[in-house]
């Protein structure tokens, strides 16, 4: 019953604050390490180099396209998992999340086996249309979709399950088709969840390395994204460049995440 200052509304229970602080430390300190070790004097010249700019552009474009594709396919999958009584639904849920556990390099090999020139689907594409996916920018996008879409699916399914289904019932009694209901009632209700999922997906796609390098290869301008560029730098002993590239990725994504203003992430 102590009259408290308005600002003390911010007081947070210790049971939450202590673990939160620990968690933030684990997540943020390594980044601080990168910042400390970064070769600040060489930074402008590294960042201005052609390769870096090309890789940055490629990364942004592919991650964004991959996120769009993942939204288009992943949100319907999440809806199927959360709202229908499809038989074998829980097996489907398990299968769809497989790429989460697959080490990305293995994922890349698996993609080659299916979409490669001699793959199940890729072979047919190549023989019929002369289309070959690997080593193209499209392959980068496909690898990113494969690796990042499950994050979106899981996040959106969680949100759909939290949302109140009775609104869907009301829409149905008003004569809305399930498509209209989905588009105008269900989807707006889970926008925060969809956005959270899209952020996860985009970030994961931006940082994607293993599946890309295996399935799409690594060629400047077409398939060498920032993480690949950083990996090359590390492997050629140039860890300074790798650090700078990582800081660049961090800066880009933090800017975009912070830019995603609060109200987009949703007001309850």
């Amino acid at each position, binding site marked *: 019953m102590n009259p408290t200052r308005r600002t003390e509304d911010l007081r947070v229970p210790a049971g939450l604050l202590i673990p939160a602080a620990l968690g933030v430390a684990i997540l943020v300190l390594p980044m601080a390490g990168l910042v400390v070790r970064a070769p600040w004097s060489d930074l402008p010249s590294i960042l201005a180099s052609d390769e870096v700019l090309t890789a940055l552009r490629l990364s942004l474009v592919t991650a964004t396209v991959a996120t769009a594709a993942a939204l288009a396919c992943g949100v319907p999958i999440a809806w199927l998992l959360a709202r229908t009584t499809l038989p074998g639904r829980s097996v489907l849920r398990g299968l769809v999340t497989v790429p989460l556990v697959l080490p990305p390099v293995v994922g890349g090999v698996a993609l080659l086996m299916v979409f490669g020139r001699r793959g199940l689907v890729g072979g047919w594409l190549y023989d019929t249309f002369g289309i070959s996916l690997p080593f193209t920018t499209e392959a980068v996008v496909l690898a990113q979709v494969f690796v990042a879409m499950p994050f979106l699916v899981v996040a959106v399914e969680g949100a759909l399950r939290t949302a109140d289904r*009775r609104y869907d*019932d*009301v*829409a*149905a009694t*008003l*004569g*809305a*088709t399930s498509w209209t209901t989905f588009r*105008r009632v269900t989807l707006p209700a889970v926008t925060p969840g969809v956005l959270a999922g899209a952020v996860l997906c985009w970030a994961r796609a931006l940082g994607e390395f293993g599946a890309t390098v295996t399935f799409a290869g690594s060629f400047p301008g077409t398939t060498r994204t920032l993480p690949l560029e950083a990996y090359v730098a590390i492997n050629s002993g140039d860890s300074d460049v790798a650090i700078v590239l990582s800081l660049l990725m961090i800066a880009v994504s933090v800017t975009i995440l912070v830019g995603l203003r609060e109200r987009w992430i949703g007001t309850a």
Partner: protein
Amino acid sequence: MSLHADLALRRGDLELRAALAVAPGEVVALLGPNGAGKSTALQLLAGILPLDAGRVELDGVTLDDPAAGVHVRPRDRRVGMVVQDYLLFPRMSVLENVAFGLRSRGMPRDRARAEAREWLGRMGLAGYERRRPGELSGGQAQRVALARALIVAPRLLLLDEPLAALDAGTRPAVRAELRRHLAGYDGCTLVVTHDPLEAMVLGDRVVVLERGSVVQQGPPAEVARRPRTDYVARLVGLNLLTGTASGRTAELPTGAVVTLAHDATGPVHIAFPPVAVTLSPRRPEGSARNAWPLVIADLEAHGDLVRVTADGAVPVLADVTPLAVADLGLEPGGEVWASVKATEISVYPA
């Protein structure tokens, strides 16, 4: 159009078995105590809950028939519904909420909006078009929900306590609007309400549901005059006793005897209004042939009168003036005699 429904469902400890029929253009008021299954019945009719057994037929088309595996989806039923907690779409404006049904049926946006705007006006909510549901008061939200359901002119309209949150000033206006709308509407309507006045004003017929079963139905005036259950009696403000008549007397299960004005035989209901009950400190000696010793359970002010709840072999409610309360020194736990003239009692077969 007409509704013929035969509903059967188990849900928790509710055992719903009710036959409901609504003629074209008819408005049926569904009354019943909390937990009677009224909202459940509406959900069954809307197709949101599946029937265990029975059959729902609207306008000759079978909507539900579990035995034959028939179940028409909610959106294919053209059933409009207003639920107890409104469920306005939180991310749409008030106008979009009301226009939703028309848009879903393919009406162009502008026309749908214009019509929605008109409906909001009729509900006294002009100027609220651009609000979000979260920015409405309880009564405002209820009116939006009502407009959203009425605008699509469904073939079957299900209203679950549509006016419960309205203030005393708005309620008659919205009720009148609703009555006007329903009068010019050839669909079937079911209104759930706890307000007897509302049931009388809106309903062409009253159906009373208790513990999942229909216990009484008929024209409002008939139900009001001849209640068949305690719940209905309390609702219309009558005392109701049940006994076995033989000649001019009826015996209650408690052994008490009630004198009647007319001959009757067999199981009967005995009803009389609380104002017909006279309370006196001793056994009355007047012409009232019915007099019982009781213990006062409760007193409650009630308009100009005080309602006295008294228990005994013949439990009664009596309405007396505050003056009488003071004169007789009535208080909970006190003893008192209650008397009713036989001519004030109405008797009808149970």
